[in-house]
């Protein structure tokens, strides 16, 4: 775990995490839109009890963990706006935008401080995030007087939504985290991923200690 500096540290690749290239931005937009469409056109048709996996949230988790809080907040806002506006949504505009923006920021901070790139790590992160997002979405609805929001309904949906979303996390969020994590430059100009750089740093520190 690296507490001072992005994964990669100053030794191998001190590149700023938050700057996204055009390719990464286009990929992020495409993935968010694609996930939103698949969610309402395919996932909701599956005969599963309760709610539906939050596919858009999984994409956001990959982006925010890989890129940091600023990109996380921006991507969360955009993803939320898509969920708020895309038919057949009929809740107040801005509800998902608010919640996912906050979630993206917090996930970005988490990604900088803790290495969650493991099956257990990504699933735990997803479970907590999915719970928070559903409760946050319902809370804003309750505050704005949405008659559909009632405690029992929300609590009945919560376990299934968290379960489905968490189950998909290793398949969706983790590969995307790897994809969005910026490349760093290793020794002799070789291109290595931030994760590899992070590991090399740990290794180097250990070797120093032995000597």
């Amino acid at each position, binding site marked *: 775990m690296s507490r001072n500096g992005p994964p990669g540290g100053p030794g191998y690749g001190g590149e700023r995490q938050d700057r996204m290239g055009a390719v990464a931005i286009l990929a992020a937009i495409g993935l968010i839109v694609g996930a939103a469409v698949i969610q309402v056109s395919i996932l909701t048709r599956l005969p599963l009890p309760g709610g539906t996996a939050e596919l858009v949230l999984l994409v956001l988790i990959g982006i925010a963990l890989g890129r940091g809080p600023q990109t996380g907040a921006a991507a969360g806002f955009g993803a939320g706006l898509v969920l708020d506006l895309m*038919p*057949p949504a009929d809740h107040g505009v801005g509800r998902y935008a608010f919640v996912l923006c906050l979630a993206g920021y917090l996930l970005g901070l988490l990604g900088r401080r803790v290495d969650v790139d493991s099956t257990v790590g990504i699933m735990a992160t997803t479970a907590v995030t999915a719970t928070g997002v559903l409760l946050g979405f319902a809370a804003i609805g309750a505050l704005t007087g949405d008659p559909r929001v009632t405690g029992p309904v929300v609590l009945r949906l919560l376990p299934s939504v968290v379960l489905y979303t968490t189950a998909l996390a290793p398949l969706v969020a983790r590969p995307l985290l790897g994809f969005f994590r910026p490349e760093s430059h290793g020794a002799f100009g070789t291109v290595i991923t931030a994760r590899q750089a992070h590991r090399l740093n740990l290794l180097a520190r250990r070797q120093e200690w032995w000597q």
Partner: protein
Amino acid sequence: MLPADDRRARRVLAVLLAVSFALITLDARNPNSPPVAAMRDVAATVFGPLQEGATTALISPVEAVRARIGNSEPLSAEVERLRTENGALRQQLSTTVVNQAELRELGRLLQVAGAGEYRVVAARVIGIGPAQGLARTITLDAGRTDGLRPEQTVINGDGLVGRVLAVGLQSSTVLLTVDPSVAVGIRMEGSREIGVVTGTGGAVLTLQLLNPQARLYPGDRLVTFGSTAGRPYVPGVPVGSVVSVSRGADGASRTVEVLPYVRFSSLDLVGIVVEQVRRDSREAVLPGRGGELG
């Protein structure tokens, strides 16, 4: 982390949260405010074709497999099937739903003129709202260009599906009858008692009759009462049947549960009533046209 980066991230967060908050406030005050309505319209126009594409991509392999095992018609027959279903929907409206004699009587009672010819447009479901969105809504692949307008009745071969909520260029959003915010005026088939069914968000509707003493038994059937000018609900569409009647502890109030005829979990093809009774609904009780009155 560099402190400058940290500060900038926090500033971005603050701005975006403020924008979200502004949108929430704007929408809460007036859901039909022009900027929000325009944004929804653009989203419907952009996402409609994408949802249609995703649905086709999903349905095609399923249909192909079904065709191969001989369970269903081949893909090429889909157009024919749609046409047949469209015809069936029209027939359903004019025959089983509205028994002609009954409709005349209902029409008089409801002050709805004549047995109007309904024109129904068939559409396919291309999106279903996730349950955690808390609204029971679907997207259809028909929109403004197909003659759809907000507040039109949506039916299928089994009965009432819901009403059109918003219309995009080639897609539209339908609010299902089971949504907790929906209330539909109904008439009991036998006793002609009138009442209101309300969505619960679950599989059943709750029924409240205007006359609390009216007799009700499980199996009693309900049809729509009909709204003014048939918007949002045309009269005489089957809604569902009573499944349980339970008295409250005080003995006076009762809870009546109605099971809709439509299976909302497996909606595929639906019909939208785009043209309804032409004449003004109030003329039916007037002696005639052209100043003969009084």
